[in-house]
């Protein structure tokens, strides 16, 4: 068991920034247990309020774990991709098709996040790619701490790709850096083309918007162009790819995007470590 945060893994480091006691009763509140003054003079104000400048980011601890993830992945040039979407947008199905296109040339691993069940990890494993399921219980997002615990997985060999399928949720996961190199937001055509405006945090933080299930487009009132325009209003730099995991339309541009992003990362990380 980790002696610092009490979790089961011993493989992550705790820098001074992330050191933290979990015991909420760790401080002695009994002021009268301090050494009594030697005189009998009553001192009504033994202590006064002190103002402390802190200037600490609330996400500093998560981000320090995310930096550890980045460092450890860079050692093997592992490109990591975090996928965000509402539940049911097609993340797992897309990952299954993605794996079929990338294997066996590129070693792959998937981390799955869901409240309950390992259904998604099982679907991935059926492709022959290793998958780890993280169950968040009542939790609504994956965080860097949870991902860091998986980094000793033997599938993360030299030049592997790690896909992280986040919990189906377009709000909370946006707030947690998982140490990924690329963040992808998926919106399906059954969801409404104003989705990027309704859920700007996920779009703002993403490198790519995938508009999925385009095979269903003829049956719904979804304007693909309007959805892409809305996404670019939030994040002018976001790339947009439309695809259908069912028919295979658009899968090639998606694979090309993965390979280009990964190639750029491998070149950049080589320069950094040179």
């Amino acid at each position: 068991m980790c002696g610092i945060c009490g979790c089961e893994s011993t493989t992550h480091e705790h820098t001074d920034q992330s050191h933290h006691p979990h015991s909420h009763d760790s401080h002695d509140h009994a002021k009268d247990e301090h050494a009594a003054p030697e005189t009998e003079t009553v001192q009504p104000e033994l202590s006064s309020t002190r103002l402390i400048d802190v200037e600490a980011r609330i996400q500093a601890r998560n981000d320090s774990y995310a930096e550890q993830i980045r460092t450890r992945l860079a050692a093997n040039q592992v490109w990591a991709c975090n996928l965000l979407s509402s539940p049911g947008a097609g993340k797992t199905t897309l990952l299954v098709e993605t794996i079929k296109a990338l294997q066996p040339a590129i070693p792959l691993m998937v981390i799955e996040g869901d409240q309950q069940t390992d259904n998604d990890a099982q679907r991935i494993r059926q492709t022959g790619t290793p998958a780890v399921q993280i169950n968040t219980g009542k939790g609504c997002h994956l965080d860097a701490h949870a991902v860091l615990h998986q980094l000793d997985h033997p599938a993360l060999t030299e030049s592997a790709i790690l896909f992280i399928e986040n919990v189906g949720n377009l709000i909370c996961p946006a707030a947690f850096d998982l140490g990924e190199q690329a963040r992808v937001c998926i919106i399906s055509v059954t969801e409404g083309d104003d989705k990027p405006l309704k859920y700007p945090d996920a779009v703002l933080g993403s490198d790519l918007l995938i508009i999925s299930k385009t095979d269903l487009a003829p049956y719904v009132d979804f304007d693909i162009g309007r959805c892409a325009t809305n996404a670019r209003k939030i994040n002018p730099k976001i790339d947009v790819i439309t695809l259908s995991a069912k028919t295979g339309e658009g899968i090639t541009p998606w694979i090309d995007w993965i390979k280009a992003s990964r190639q750029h990362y491998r070149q950049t990380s080589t320069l950094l470590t040179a």
Partner: protein
Amino acid sequence: MHELALAEEVLIIAEQQAIQHSLSTINSIKLTIGALSCVEPEALRWALEVTLENTLADHAEIQLTIAPGEGKCGGCGASFAVTELPAPCPQCQNWQTQILAGQDMVVQQLAGTE
């Protein structure tokens, strides 16, 4: 509701500061929440009230300030305050706004006693 996870982080920061500065009680916590950050400020306030109960910061006063975001137009180069997205450039009305600030959530200050 990730506000609870964020409130837990605020508590951890408060506990670290208490150790560093030999405080036994935290009476108030001042936070600056960026207008473009990933949290609803009042939800965070509620989450803090719940999370801080029975801790060294029990019933600490929570002071929340919303910091405006800052955007820069990728078209005309104008800089401007951004309070929510989407935010077209007020000068040229283009949709090329890059967000420069407003996404941070920071514990600015806290007050406590020994």
